[in-house]
């Protein structure tokens, strides 16, 4: 039992740390900070600059890919170190839709043409992807999806609507689950996995504003959209298999331990600045207790993740236990946005970034903390709600 890093790992950690220090652009840092204070959405440039820089450095933009596709080929420990260092340095998160979600499906189930066409753009960050899974009314019952793809010659004609599509407003491509066989015995059996160019005529992206006023997700409408049949991944009607494969991928890293550590650090600093009864809030026993509980929960979660990782390194694969990481990871993110909001007392109220908010008010660090709290309620809903995750553990792990 040993949680110290090997000398190779430490060398790697230093390499990552140096790379970030030397290559993460200050202008990007400033731009994001400014938008955070304004409660503004990040631009496509904000979202992809760092991705592009990483892409030029030994495939660091795609740490999980096999080396044959240009991936970094990190070991699980290296992946962990890489994520931790990026979080420590507060680097912008590389959007997962291309690199972590679509690409593994392409290089696992796609043909050579598809790999050659799509993987380089995902690696480099030139091509931005979004995910077309959810539909109005489908929610956690993904297999009930209704968007149809009807084959006509060498094309599919797509009709229907996707929703909750994160960052679709910036996307060049979307990977979609569509219904190719409406008469299949089970709803899962008639679904296919297809790649669609967002510039194809008939696609319309409509913004959805979340309760903090931010346009993070969208509706994507398909009206007789003509998609070349060569964009179908693998076999027709086998999409559900690929989707399940992808869902397992999606959950890794969802615990977001390193980012949450950073968040606790910041909450402590805020609580040291805020006053309560003439003393810094961080001396209030009730608030102290909440910070301590969060910190301990996070340490537990960190070691739960490390244990999963160790199992993974030993070739045993993470398995459905990763649902635990999703549940606890999102609980933690939610708890921390709540604590941060609570720390600033009355300054949870101001709503910056609306057309009516002209000047900043309150301490710098208070800006939009309530917005974050409200926004992060999504974390226990998306990617399979935490209720669904409990169902998965009950069935797959406990055999109930």
């Amino acid at each position, binding site marked *: 039992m040993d949680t110290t890093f090997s000398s190779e790992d430490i060398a790697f950690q230093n390499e990552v740390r140096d790379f970030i220090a030397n290559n993460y652009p200050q202008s990007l840092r400033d731009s994001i900070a400014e938008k955070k204070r304004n409660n503004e959405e990040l631009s496509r440039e904000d979202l992809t600059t760092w991705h592009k820089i990483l892409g030029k450095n030994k495939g660091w933009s795609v740490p999980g890919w096999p080396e044959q596709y240009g991936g970094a080929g990190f070991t699980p420990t290296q992946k962990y170190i890489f994520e931790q260092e990026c979080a420590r340095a507060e680097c912008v998160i590389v959007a997962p839709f291309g690199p972590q979600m679509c690409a593994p499906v392409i290089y696992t189930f796609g043909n050579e043409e598809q790999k050659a066409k799509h993987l380089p753009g995902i690696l480099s960050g030139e091509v931005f992807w979004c995910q077309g899974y959810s539909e109005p009314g489908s929610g956690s019952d993904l297999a009930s999806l209704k968007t149809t793809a009807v084959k006509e010659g060498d094309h599919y004609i797509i009709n229907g609507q996707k929703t909750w599509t994160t960052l679709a407003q910036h996307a060049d491509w979307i990977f979609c689950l569509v219904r190719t066989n409406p008469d299949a015995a089970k709803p899962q059996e008639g679904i296919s996995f297809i790649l669609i160019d967002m510039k194809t005529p008939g696609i319309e992206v409509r913004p959805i504003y979340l309760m903090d006023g931010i346009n993070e997700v969208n509706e994507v409408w398909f009206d007789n959209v003509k998609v070349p049949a060569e964009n179908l991944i693998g076999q027709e009607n086998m999409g559900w298999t690929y989707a399940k494969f992808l869902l397992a991928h999606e959950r890794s890293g969802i615990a977001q331990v390193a980012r949450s550590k950073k968040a606790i650090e910041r909450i402590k600093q805020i609580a040291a600045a805020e*006053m309560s009864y003439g003393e810094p809030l961080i001396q209030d026993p009730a608030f102290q207790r909440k910070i301590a509980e969060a910190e301990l929960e996070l340490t537990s979660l960190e070691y739960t993740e490390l244990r999963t990782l160790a199992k993974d390194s030993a070739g045993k694969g993470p398995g459905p236990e990763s649902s635990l990481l999703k549940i606890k990871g999102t609980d933690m993110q939610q708890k921390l946005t709540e604590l941060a909001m609570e720390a600033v007392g009355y300054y949870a109220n101001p709503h910056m970034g609306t057309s*009516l908010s002209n000047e900043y008010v309150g301490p710098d660090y208070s800006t939009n903390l309530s917005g974050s709290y409200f926004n992060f309620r999504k974390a226990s809903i998306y990617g399979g709600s935490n209720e669904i995750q409990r169902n998965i553990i009950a069935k797959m792990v406990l055999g109930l």
Partner: protein
Amino acid sequence: MHFELTEEQTLLENMVTAFVRDDYNWETREKIVKTEEGWKPENWSKFAELGLLSVPFSEDHGGLGGTAVDSMVVMEQFGKGLVVEPFMPSILLSGNLISKLANESQANEIIPKIIEGESRYVFAYAEPQSRFDLSDVKTSATKDGDEYTLNGFKSVVFGASMATHIIIAARTSGDQRSEDGITLFLADIKSNGITLQTYPTIDEYRASEVVIENLKISSDMVLGEVDKAYSVVEEVIDLATIAACSEAVGILQVLKDSTIDYCKQRKQFGQPISKNQAIQHKLVDMMIEYEQAKSILYAAVTADLSNADERKKAVSGAKARIGQSIKFVGESAIQLHGGMGMVDEYMISHYFKRATMLGVLFGNVDFHMKRFVGLTQSNIEPIDGSATIRGGY
């Protein structure tokens, strides 16, 4: 012993319910909150017509002489409609301060105008460093002859941009956190020396930062006794806290009922999600939390509020406990609504946001728990347990 409303209270309730139903439906409200001003002055005239603006004032001054139950009745319904007009800050808070402290000439001058809807006061008490501590006042007032000069900064004053006048708590003597030495001043909100920075709040109300620079106020405009405002401020904030609790309870009812309805309608895996036992039990717990919140509100409004200790205990107890309900019911409502709970377009998120912000107003759970502890756990006689211990330690 009973929990029925009086005939007058029932009339009041019906009146406010009708207003929310007829004049404040969701589309109307959406339009109001998107205006630059963030309220609809016509509604204020309507409140005046309905007599709502007279609630806190004594019958001598043409008021209703309203009790905590009257405030509750109004605010619970306003909560259900998410009414943004500044009834709580201008009437239940500032109005009540004036009612309790104004001298005869001030009262005669001010109260009729408030009741008619012509004047609206707001009360600026919080400062960036004070958090919820009412005695922590740095804004200074120094006297020179018949005039005071005020300097300072007041934070998050709800409704200030809609007000005609302001009541400022300022320090005339004592240390920054001493209860003694706080004085209230009345001023026209457009006075030289007052600058407002107005902004929307996350729950679509309006608040302002108030910068006070060399504001000159005549000593006629002192409200109440010099240096001695603290205990009345505490009392009036306590009563407004009950109003905030009442608004919250109205909102919690909407959150709970809407979520139950939604879960009955929303289908997944071929059946309403309300058929899932885990969801059923969560809905039951939401219902229990709502009932417990309502109960402790009833405990507060029926307490002996004329006794300061009883009042503080009842108010802090209710605010702390209801704060817990807000978190549980609010977060559960969003979770069970799934994606629909997250969007700005659907009304549930707005109720959640308002409830959450009411949890902060006048002090959050920790603040009121601590105050409640101070009132209920001091001077406890220790039980004697020494009889069976040997060795005489």
